């Protein structure tokens, strides 16, 4: 493919390619060895270090709690918070959601707030069934009373 035909070929081959209109994927970045590029790569490795560190902390707490025989709500909460931290970094930096427009970020994240209701409702349900099984099992399961 000769150089002066290059642009035309793209046009005819990918007439419907919206990527060229939006997203700025054709906005030519400078060299991969440029200062800007190096900064971005450095950030990626920083986040890698952070994700590894958080995982190591989680494993350390997990092993500590296991050998000490501790099962507490506090430890569960710490695990959940650390999980959310890891998830946030993956979505923001690795998936580049942090670089998108605010309205798009909300379009993706707002539906996920359903999980708040989802988790609360189902935990309450599970607790209720535990309570029923422990206190009312005999009235429900006639077999076991015989």
């Amino acid at each position, binding site marked *: 493919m000769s150089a002066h035909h290059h642009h035309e070929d793209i046009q005819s081959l990918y007439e419907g390619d919206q990527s060229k209109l939006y997203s700025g994927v054709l906005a030519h970045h400078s060299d991969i060895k440029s200062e800007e590029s190096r900064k971005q790569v450095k950030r990626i490795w920083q986040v890698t270090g952070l994700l590894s560190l958080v995982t190591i902390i989680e494993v350390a707490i997990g092993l500590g709690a296991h050998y000490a025989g501790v099962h507490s709500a506090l430890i569960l909460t710490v695990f959940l918070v650390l999980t959310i931290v890891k998830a946030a970094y993956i979505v923001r930096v690795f998936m580049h959601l942090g670089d998108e427009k605010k309205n*798009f970020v909300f379009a993706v994240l707002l539906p996920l707030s359903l999980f708040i209701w*989802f988790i609360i409702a*189902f935990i309450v349900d599970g607790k209720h069934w535990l309570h029923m099984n422990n206190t009312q099992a005999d009235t429900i399961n006639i077999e076991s009373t015989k």
Partner: protein
Amino acid sequence: MTQASTATATTSKWGGGQSPYNVSYGKIMMWFFLLSDALTFGALLISYGTTRFASNVWPDPNEVFHSFPVLSDLLHKPMPLMFVSLMTFILILSSVTMVLAVHAGHYNDKKGVIRWMLLTIIGGICFLACQAWEWTHLYHTGAWWGSFIDAPLDSVKHLFNMHKPGTAEAIAANPSVAANATHDFYNYFFTITGFHGAHVTSGVILNIMLLINTVNGTYERRGHYEMVEKVGLYWHFVDLVWVFVFTCFYLL
């Protein structure tokens, strides 16, 4: 085009002819697909959590997942959390190589894309190999979908009581809870890690297709590597789900 945008300048930017999100169709649809997939995984994990909350006792992951290939037999001692930490680390690293492939794509660096994609594929295959080992190992201990095994009622070592101290008393009061909890635990474990493993498998296949296209110069001719970005989103999502699976099954 220029006249058209001038004429509609007074109307809403949501009125058409513009891209309010400034994201291409394919990328938006990938995000919305991932959103729906997140709801599916969320439903599975929350269902698991509900069952666990409704049980007096539950298998202790540190007792169930305590093996490491070769090492745990060699040292004759359980190694809880070690193997899954290795798996987690492999998946995080393959996510990093993927984001570096996307980065190389932004700069139209074909060689860079090829190098990082190759490493991403190797990482994905390593993770799948680890999962295959873990499943096989568990299967040989008697664990599978529908299995009640590993919960002999005279042994409560691998169970812990989440709600009150004294697993033994809870089982003495109602012996079937131990078998039921183990049964539920394995059903959820194999279903959820299996569903995740299926995602990793299809991710590896997509990554191989990307690599072939990159080597063949498809994206170079197209003028951009957005396909690497879109598949990259999927690959990161698979890593993201594993972060939650790791917490729910191995840590909590």
